[in-house]
């Protein structure tokens, strides 16, 4: 069997270019599926871990629903901004809540000595934010309630900012300029990686009262992050908070909510829908190009069988059984396929690497690529190689020997 496999491979090396061209369809198919699965895998690995870390017990109160679309967003602009004080109100009065924090943010530049980073999202939060989001501080500490109240210029930075400003030195205690104001770095967030379109390591958090002081004239309102006591009590908690917010915003019973309670779960649903769509695209493109590629393989195998009629005759005269001829050509078509599959997977891993390195998206090579690859080789090679191989196996040795 091993010998027959060798024969098949040596036949391929005789027509390298032809083999490569033939497998283009399979290459494209495998590449598409491979690249998309790498992206999905990348999204999964960063998304799921972080969403679950952020907790299915966390929700956010803001003016607009995250998933309401354009109309919702337009409506929301007419609504009253969310007051950051709501967070304190919730913390004080709610029973089903562990912690809550206002969130106000803007994009601005960071400067350290002569270095600067453009357009970083700065978020003003209170001292409870790490508890809510489940973030770890790898160096230094987060700011305290008192520091927040006293509007201290303290900042906790993400890993990317540290890399940019302090590649080799300790950032703790250093001064950086945020929006022209001097801040002292007191902590460093643990590295978290990418999540959907956000790089979690880009974040910078400061006390929200400091934020407010700094941005007095442009207060666009906040949103409130709330962590429920437990996932089981989430619905109770949401209902309690809804009533509390209605009361706080002075809504009459007949008026509709002029705010939305958003939750990561909704995000997960959307995410699942998106990845399902991606999968459908991958499988669609993949199977079409595999069929096209398979027909290419079949075509080239028919040519190969016709070209080598005499060889088949010789082999038969030397005692090759039908089975052995059949296997020789089946192996050959599987070898052709494996060229396509390997090229496709190489291209896909190259793409995955580029995506991971140069875009905010994450991509990861899934462990099941090996299975995907060999599955394709076996399936396409067998299905589309069967007819040509069978034709070779059934050749009449006398006619085959006479063929020139």
């Amino acid at each position, binding site marked *: 069997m091993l*010998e*027959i496999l060798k024969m098949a491979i*040596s*036949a391929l090396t*005789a027509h390298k270019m032809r083999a490569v061209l033939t497998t283009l369809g399979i290459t494209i198919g495998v590449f598409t599926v491979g690249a998309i699965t790498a992206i999905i895998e990348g999204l999964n690995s960063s998304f799921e871990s972080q969403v679950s870390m952020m907790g299915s017990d966390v929700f956010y109160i803001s003016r607009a629903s995250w998933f309401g679309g354009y109309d919702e967003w337009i409506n929301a602009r007419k609504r009253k901004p969310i007051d950051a004080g709501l967070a304190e109100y919730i913390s004080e009065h709610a029973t089903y809540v562990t912690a809550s924090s206002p969130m106000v943010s803007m994009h601005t530049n960071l400067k350290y000595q002569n270095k600067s980073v453009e357009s970083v999202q700065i978020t003003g939060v209170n001292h409870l934010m790490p508890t809510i989001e489940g973030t770890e501080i790898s160096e230094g500490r987060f700011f305290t309630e008192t520091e927040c109240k006293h509007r201290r210029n303290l900042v906790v930075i993400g890993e990317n900012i540290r890399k940019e400003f302090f590649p080799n030195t300790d950032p703790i205690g250093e001064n950086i300029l945020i929006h022209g104001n001097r801040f002292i770095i007191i902590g460093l967030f643990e590295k978290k990686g990418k999540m959907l379109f956000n790089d979690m390591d880009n974040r910078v958090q400061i006390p929200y009262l400091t934020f407010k002081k700094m941005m007095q004239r442009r207060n666009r309102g906040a949103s409130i992050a709330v962590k429920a006591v437990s996932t089981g009590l989430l619905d109770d908690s949401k209902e309690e908070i809804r009533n509390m917010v209605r009361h706080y915003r002075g809504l009459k019973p007949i008026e509709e909510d002029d705010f939305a309670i958003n939750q990561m779960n909704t995000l997960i649903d959307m995410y699942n829908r998106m990845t399902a769509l991606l999968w459908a695209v991958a499988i669609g493109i993949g199977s079409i190009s595999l069929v096209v590629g398979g027909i290419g393989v079949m075509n080239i195998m028919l040519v190969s069988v016709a070209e080598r009629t*005499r*060889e088949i*005759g*010789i*082999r*038969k*005269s*030397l*005692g*090759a*059984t*039908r*089975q*052995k001829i059949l296997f020789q050509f089946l192996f050959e078509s599987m070898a052709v396929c494996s060229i396509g599959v390997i090229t496709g997977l190489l291209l896909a891993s190259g793409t995955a690497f580029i995506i991971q390195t140069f875009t905010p998206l994450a991509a990861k090579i899934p462990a099941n690529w090996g299975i995907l690859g060999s599955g394709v080789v076996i399936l396409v090679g067998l299905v589309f190689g069967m007819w040509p191989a069978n034709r070779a196996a059934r050749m009449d*040795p*006398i006619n085959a*020997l006479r063929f020139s």
Partner: protein
Amino acid sequence: MTEKPELIHFDHISRIYQMGTETIRALDDVTLTIRNNDYISIMGPSGSGKSTLMNIIGCLDTPTTGVYRFEKEIVCDMNSEKTIKMNDNQLAGIRNKKIGFVFQTFNLLPRASAFQNVELPLIYAGISRGQRREMAMKALENVSLLDRASHKPSELSGGQRQRVAIARALVNSPSIILADEPTGNLDSETSRDIMTFFDELHRRNNTVILVTHEPDIAAHAHRMIHILDGKIDSDVVNHKMVKN
């Protein structure tokens, strides 16, 4: 003189082709016995049926009627009520182990080296790698081509190619060597070299059948069969050679 054991027996064998409306009797009621260590030449003009005879002996073709026995075993019996025929694997087995083919056009695999060509029947016989190497090298040594083992056919002369083909035919120690115009593509000097090989093979107790239309090649054989219109026209002992 004691009769040598029977190797091949044709019992009223015919091979009929249907070409459109025309019926061609390529072989017409041929009865023939070939014994161990026979050295036979089969002659006849083209279209006389000698190739068909050869193909049937070589288990590449099956007769339309008659019984063919190879080493007393029935290869096919088309006369009995229910025809008996060996299946494809059995026929391939006979071709592989019992018959060594030598062709006019050598029929070597062009991309394979001399060694790989000689090794091929051994692969199909399922012989282990180490043993294959030994046997193929010995076969190449027998045709004095050990130093050309790694050459491709295109790097060998016509005579050398035919010697590789002979080595390949002999590597499985077959019961019979079937040579179809083995010198047809060679010049006269190389032809003589090749023919001394066949003479030598016969001396070493091999059974050799030569199909040729050249009388001086046929004259090497000890028994000369002449075929005409699918029938055996003459089957005579070549007294000149037998005396030697």
